[in-house]
């Protein structure tokens, strides 16, 4: 393998990074016309990265040192880059002159970090990629507004992020100590997957390492008890950046957890299963209950973001069922949901950023009151996105929730964790009902409230374009879910060697399932849903 392999396999990331460098350099130009080029450059770079993914982005067998390009990598690349386009559109006019270069350069860097996280095959690369996603987001929060609230949010986010990175790195050091290597998966060299393939191989150090790494990543996904920063940071940052925070760090955290559970072949000690189970149940409940108490829409959506992490953790607990599709495959359901969540969350925040109240961001329910009489298009988009967040048909959010809950109840009844997963699904459904209460408050404010507040729409055509794309995607993915469900199904094929398994697979029935359902499904490519 030569440098040409690097150039072709990493071409999407190279396109993003080169675009980021150009954006940085235009940012310090003395010519105002050049300075304002940053956003178009970022948009072009993402388009170039999409083209590179389409041309060169195929899963390959030869591994580059520290990197591995699997079907999961390709899926994450596609959803990241496709979400990056509306992200850039929403942020198009946000940064002030003199900070545009930094803003879009950092945004591209963060996106590149996310695609690298999906390609990481080494603990060190994984850590660096996760930090490459996180560090730019701290700065983006500070750049998003000029007032002190944004600075406060940024500093808070930075210090807590640094703490979580330290915990994560500490966990990785335990994993390295237990296995003696930092390589995740390999056919030839010693690697973590071989060391942790069985519960017996999972020593005390390995368990401690996994626990610490999961704790560090819980911060990135905003799971309880590391959720406390979420509402403050979401409120402090300007709405377009908040839409970004709900997608990039969250997806990076989930991808890293998937990678760590893959090296255990989805067989983890009971303690870790129950830990994630408890975290999932708490995250859903705490997020939704606290969201009920909010009148600030941004804080409400922040707590809803916490709750959505809880739903996604259910999919993670179910684990992959290769070739089964998202109805049975928890990871495919989660991968479906995370993209849908990214878009609907971005859409909701795009509506908030498209409105302003005397130059201030539109934040409270009162600001949204009677929106349908003032700007019907914005109100309809908001209703679509909020219905999708609520999980109400005909939107993709409904399908996402159906996939997650059905994957949880479809676990083999012989499995020890069959019952706990059903209980978790029931908790999830109850939580969806609780969540409807506060989501409907947003809808009722938009549709039924009296139109007293004096907002003028702002943000221009770019925000509206992104908003239209997000809302249309919600409807389109409901009508044609196979557009996303099929890639999500194929994305999980690289996650295990033995086929169907759950986090509890080693206890009972895991082996039987592996021989029958999993392998057969993987070969024939089961039904799309």
């Amino acid at each position: 393998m030569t440098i040409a392999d690097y150039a072709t396999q990493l071409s999407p990331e190279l396109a993003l990074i080169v675009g980021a460098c150009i954006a940085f350099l235009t940012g310090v130009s003395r010519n105002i016309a050049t300075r304002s080029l940053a956003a178009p450059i970022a948009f072009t770079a993402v388009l170039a990265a999409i083209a590179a993914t389409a041309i060169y982005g195929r899963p390959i067998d030869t591994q580059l040192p520290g990197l591995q390009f699997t079907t999961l990598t390709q899926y994450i690349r596609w959803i990241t880059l496709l979400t990056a386009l509306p992200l850039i559109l929403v942020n198009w006019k946000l940064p002030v002159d003199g900070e545009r270069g930094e803003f879009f350069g950092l945004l591209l860097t963060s996106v590149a970090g996310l695609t690298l996280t999906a390609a990481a095959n080494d603990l060190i690369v994984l850590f660096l990629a996760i930090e490459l996603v996180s560090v730019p987001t701290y700065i983006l929060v500070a750049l998003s507004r000029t007032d002190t609230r944004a600075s406060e949010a940024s500093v808070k986010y930075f210090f807590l992020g640094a703490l979580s990175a330290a915990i994560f790195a500490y966990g990785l050091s335990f994993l390295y100590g237990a296995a003696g290597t930092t390589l995740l998966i390999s056919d030839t060299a010693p690697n973590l997957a071989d060391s942790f393939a069985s519960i017996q191989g999972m020593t005390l150090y390995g368990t401690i390492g996994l626990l610490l790494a999961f704790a560090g990543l819980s911060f990135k996904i905003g799971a309880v008890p590391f959720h406390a920063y979420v509402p403050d940071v979401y409120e402090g940052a300007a709405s377009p950046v908040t839409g970004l925070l709900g997608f990039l760090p969250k997806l990076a955290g989930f991808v890293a957890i998937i990678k760590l559970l893959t090296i255990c072949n989805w067989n983890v000690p009971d303690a870790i299963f129950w830990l994630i189970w408890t975290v999932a149940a708490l995250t859903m409940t705490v997020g939704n209950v606290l969201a009920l108490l909010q009148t600030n829409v941004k804080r409400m959506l922040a707590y809803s973001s916490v709750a959505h992490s809880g739903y996604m953790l259910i999919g993670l607990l179910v684990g992959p069922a290769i070739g089964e599709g998202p109805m049975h495959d928890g990871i495919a359901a989660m991968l479906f949901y995370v993209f849908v969540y990214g878009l609907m969350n971005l859409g909701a925040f795009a509506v908030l950023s498209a409105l302003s109240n005397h130059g201030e961001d539109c934040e409270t329910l009162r600001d949204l009151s009677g929106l349908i009489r003032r700007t019907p298009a914005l109100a309809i988009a908001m209703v679509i996105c909020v219905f999708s967040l609520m999980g109400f048909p005909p939107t993709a959010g409904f399908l996402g929730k159906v996939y997650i809950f059905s994957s949880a109840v479809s676990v083999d009844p012989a499995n020890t964790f069959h019952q706990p997963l059903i209980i978790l699904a029931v908790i999830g459904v109850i939580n969806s009902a609780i969540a409807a209460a506060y989501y409907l408050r947003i809808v009722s404010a938009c549709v039924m409230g009296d139109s007293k507040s004096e907002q003028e729409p702002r943000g221009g055509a770019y925000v509206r374009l992104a908003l239209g794309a997000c809302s249309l995607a919600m409807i389109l993915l409901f009508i044609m879910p196979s557009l996303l469900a099929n890639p999500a199904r194929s994305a999980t094929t690289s996650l295990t060697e033995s086929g169907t398994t759950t986090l509890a697979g080693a206890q009972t029935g895991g082996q039987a399932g592996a021989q029958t359902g999993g392998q057969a499904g993987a070969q024939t490519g089961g039904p799309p849903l």
Partner: protein
Amino acid sequence: MVVVGPSKAQSLQRYGSGVVSGMVLAVCRELRYLMMAWSCDGFERYCGVMGESSLVPYGAILVVIGIAVSMGVGALLIAHLVRPARKGDVKDSTYESGMPTIGDARQRFNVRFYLIALLFLLFDVEVVFLWPWALAFFKASKTGEPIVTTGGFSAGSGTLLGAMAVFVAFLLVGFAYEWRKGALEWD
């Protein structure tokens, strides 16, 4: 003369003696283990008790830690036993024969210093990557054979030069940015 209160000094001393006695106890325990290890089957058994057998190579580090701790504690202990005990405001001051201290060291520093530290870090860390590259490039250009890593990656001297050019180009972008942004100007 700026004076440190006697109570602070006393508590420091009390705290210090506690730390010292704790250290002595720890050293005694280490020595006991050491003697046990030397007298019985060596470090392997001792380390095997602690956990995994993979800890064996760390036995040497344990010895070094033991020596380091005993030297430090020994120096303090001997000084404590030998030195005359005179007390007083001057004795308790931060620098007995030096300048009187002004204020607290925990004050705010100008944010520029952090900027300088960051810029230093950028070009300092770069060298970490330059050194191994220089060795590999030297070997490749001298023998004419491509360098092959354990991961199976092979690169001739031309490729290596190109890779470093890209790396330096990325650094130069950062350098150009900070220059134009005025990060190198003090005022």
